[in-house]
């Protein structure tokens, strides 16, 4: 295109001042952005109200999209399933037979667990869910991993509450608007979650990776006992998350831990459940306070 020459508007003083003002505003805008970044770096919760209001406004559109996403994925899965039907049915039947046995075993364990708890006079407190909602959006173009949830403070959601799907832990609520909330996903690099190996209770810290995996950092040094395929659940230490929420499966061990793949794929889940914070869920009222605090 031919040069527009908008920078040199001629002899008109007014036009020249206008151009100058435009460029001054542009540089001031960049400076304002830098200043805001500094404010946010010192206080991460600054402007959360503004973001909450903005997300509230866009949430209805997101709800429509979330329904469409669930439907289209269901359709694709159905179509794909036709091609592998025979072998998959045989495999699934085998697995169902095994699972039935496991289910009976689990019921027995559950019963035994209940009796032992009764002996210890621990109350069986499965937390009552606060709300269930759809994930209506995610920061898919940023390296931070947030998702937007279709419920907010009107439904009783508060910051810090765990968000779980039927497959496992999704994240925790970070900021709350009136009818929407931002969820810090477990794959965000700022998300640190105490977990333990389901089989023997080896404790580790799970830190999110921007590429959709989590890094498990073992608490005790020594020979790395992790193997690919080990399942991890939340350990419940530190409050926030109740123990035993399915979390991730080790993909490959590293020198001081492992890279693990989260069990809950936020993209594949339709509805998620917001649970109350674990320390509020009544554990501390049934257990004696830890001795030797202060």
């Amino acid at each position, binding site marked *: *295109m031919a*040069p*527009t020459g*908008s*920078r040199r508007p001629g002899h008109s003083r007014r036009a020249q001042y206008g151009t100058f003002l*435009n*460029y001054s*505003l*542009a*540089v*001031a*805008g*960049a400076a*304002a*952005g*830098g*200043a*805001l*970044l500094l*404010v*946010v*770096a010192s206080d991460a919760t*600054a*402007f959360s109200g*503004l*973001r909450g209001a*903005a*997300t509230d406004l*866009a*949430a209805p*559109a*997101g709800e429509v*999209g979330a329904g*469409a*996403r669930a439907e289209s994925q269901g359709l694709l899965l159905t179509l794909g399933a036709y091609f592998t039907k025979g072998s998959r049915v045989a495999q699934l039947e085998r697995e169902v037979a095994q699972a039935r046995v496991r289910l009976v075993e689990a019921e027995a364990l559950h019963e035994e667990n209940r009796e032992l708890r009764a002996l210890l006079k621990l109350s069986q407190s499965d937390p009552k869910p606060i709300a269930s909602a759809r*994930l*209506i*959006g*995610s*920061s*898919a*173009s*940023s*390296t*931070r*991993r947030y*998702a*937007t949830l279709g419920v907010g403070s009107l439904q009783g959601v508060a910051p810090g509450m765990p968000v779980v799907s039927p497959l496992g832990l999704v994240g925790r609520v970070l900021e709350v608007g009136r009818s929407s909330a931002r969820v810090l996903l477990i*794959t965000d*690099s*700022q998300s640190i979650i105490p977990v333990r190996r389901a089989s023997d209770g080896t404790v580790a810290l799970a830190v999110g*990776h*921007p*590429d*959709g995996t989590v890094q498990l950092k073992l608490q005790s040094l020594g020979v790395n006992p992790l193997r690919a395929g080990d399942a991890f659940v939340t350990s419940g230490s530190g409050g926030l998350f109740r123990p035993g929420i399915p979390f991730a499966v080790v993909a490959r061990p590293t020198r001081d831990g492992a890279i693990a793949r*989260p069990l809950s*794929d*936020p*993209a594949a*889940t339709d509805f998620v459940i917001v649970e109350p914070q674990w320390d509020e869920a009544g554990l501390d009222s049934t257990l004696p306070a830890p001795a030797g605090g202060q």
Partner: protein
Amino acid sequence: MPLPLPLPKPIREIGRKRINRAPSPLLAVAVPWLVVMAGSLSPMWPVIASAPILPPIGFLMLVAWEQLRPGILPVWAGLPLGLFDDLYSGQPLGSAILLWSIAVILLDFVETRFPWRGFALNWLFASAVITAYLFLAQALAQPGGVGVPLAILPQLGISLLLYPLIARLVALFDRFRLMPVREA
């Protein structure tokens, strides 16, 4: 044969009278802003990603408008549009304000310095701007700079390949913007 129902007058007259028609000034001014803002709303699209894969649609549209119609967005447009993008993108507030402002100033400079550009040169300049934007945004999003820059490489590839398509889309909106709808 007449239609059973009379169509509304504006629809009947599409393509009939183009003389004595002028574009609506409201559309002509508002469409670039609205298109970029709609692109910024892409985090509300039904994609729940566990890794950064979606290109920064709003930013791509901003670059495309700047290249197609230099000066149609004022040079300070990075401030309001960046603020809107920050509200939805998940980046720390201020990152898009800063980077978009710099990008608009930079594209304005390129426009005055290299006014005659073809498709390839436009794509090259846009690629440089987008690459710098993605890496800087990643650095700003990870406090302390402990990010994994490699994690954005797929996103970068998708963004660069998608840019010509976005530019075509913006050109389509530009035609819509200048559609003669109003009686002059």
